[in-house]
């Protein structure tokens, strides 16, 4: 039977393999190993739990630290923003002030230009006085030369000297009066008609 042959073959192989080397079992070694195994079986979960607790603790600590750092960063940024805002406000105020000053200066320049464009009233008056004195002298000249109104002319000359003594017209009037006087003296010395100016103040 093939089954018997197989069994026979297996048994022969087993016999050929022989008996294994004797094994020495020491009970103290077994006890030590059992204790070690028990210790490992107890210690491993405890160590794992401790490791997990430490990891969780560290993670929490890191999280808190990160949170604190984050808050500190936010506070720092807020402070920087406040500083920047204050600086921006100061700069803005300065710019406003500068612009205001510029506007004031511009206005001042304009006013000064306007003021410069306004003629001096004294000069104007002086001009008017000069013009009036000149006109009066001119009138007196005409009266004396063209209309032969000698006395009116002398009166006008004297009036010019009286009213506008510091003007060029007054000087001219004085010259004219002296000329008239000279002419009168010349005529007097030649035996011509003696002419004496009337109503002429002694100061002239």
């Amino acid at each position, binding site marked *: 039977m093939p089954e018997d042959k197989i069994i026979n*073959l*297996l*048994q*022969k192989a*087993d016999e050929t*393999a022989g008996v*294994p080397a*004797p094994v020495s*079992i020491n009970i103290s070694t077994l006890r030590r190993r059992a204790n070690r*195994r028990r210790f490992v079986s107890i210690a491993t979960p405890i160590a794992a739990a401790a490791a997990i607790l430490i990891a969780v603790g560290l993670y929490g600590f890191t999280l808190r630290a990160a949170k604190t750092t984050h808050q500190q960063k936010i506070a720092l940024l807020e402070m920087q923003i406040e500083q920047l805002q204050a600086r921006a406000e100061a700069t803005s105020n300065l710019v406003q002030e500068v612009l205001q000053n510029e506007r004031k200066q511009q206005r001042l320049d304009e006013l000064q230009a306007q003021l410069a464009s306004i003629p001096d009233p004294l000069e104007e008056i002086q001009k008017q006085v000069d013009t009036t004195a000149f006109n009066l002298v001119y009138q007196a000249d005409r009266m004396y030369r063209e209309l032969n109104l000698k006395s009116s002319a002398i009166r006008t000359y004297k009036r010019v000297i009286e009213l506008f003594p510091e003007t060029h017209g007054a000087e001219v009037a004085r010259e004219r009066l002296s000329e008239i006087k000279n002419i009168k003296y010349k005529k007097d010395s030649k035996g011509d008609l003696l002419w004496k100016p009337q109503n002429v103040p002694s100061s002239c």
Partner: protein
Amino acid sequence: MVVMAEKIDDECLVKQFSQGDDSAFNRIVEQYSADIAVLTNRLLGWPGDVEDVVQDIFLAVFVGLKKFRCECSLKSWLFTITINKCRTYRYKQILWQRKTITKLRLRLPPNRPADGRLMDSETFNRVRRAVKAMPAKYREPIVLRYLQGLSINESSRILGISENVLQVRLNRARKRLRRELAELIEE
């Protein structure tokens, strides 16, 4: 009668060990270590050196002996532990082989010599390879039934399977070996 006497003796040993008598365990070792070593050697495919596995088996016995309720014979209980430990050992070995297959090939133990033995080296190696290549569910019944010489009842109890299942597995294992070792059988 002999079985009953053995059982009573085993119960006494277990009781003594439970009470803290280490000599009881020494007696168990003396009584069963050879059988366990032989069974381990057979289950692992006759590697020769089975000391580490046997040490592990007796460590498990040392730890679990106090829990032994004597519902079966101590020998059956020890054989069950042996089978379980051998399964674990083989499983670890397979995992290790997968990791370092190249190294393993270089470090394979030399084939057992057959000087003056019943079988030549080549035949022994073929049988050995065929037995080792079988899955545990076929190899274990073969070893228990044909090499250890246990009865169908005892083998099925040790393996934790029914007698019918054991018969089926034995039949399949034989077919498998017949196919693998056809040339040797015909000779």
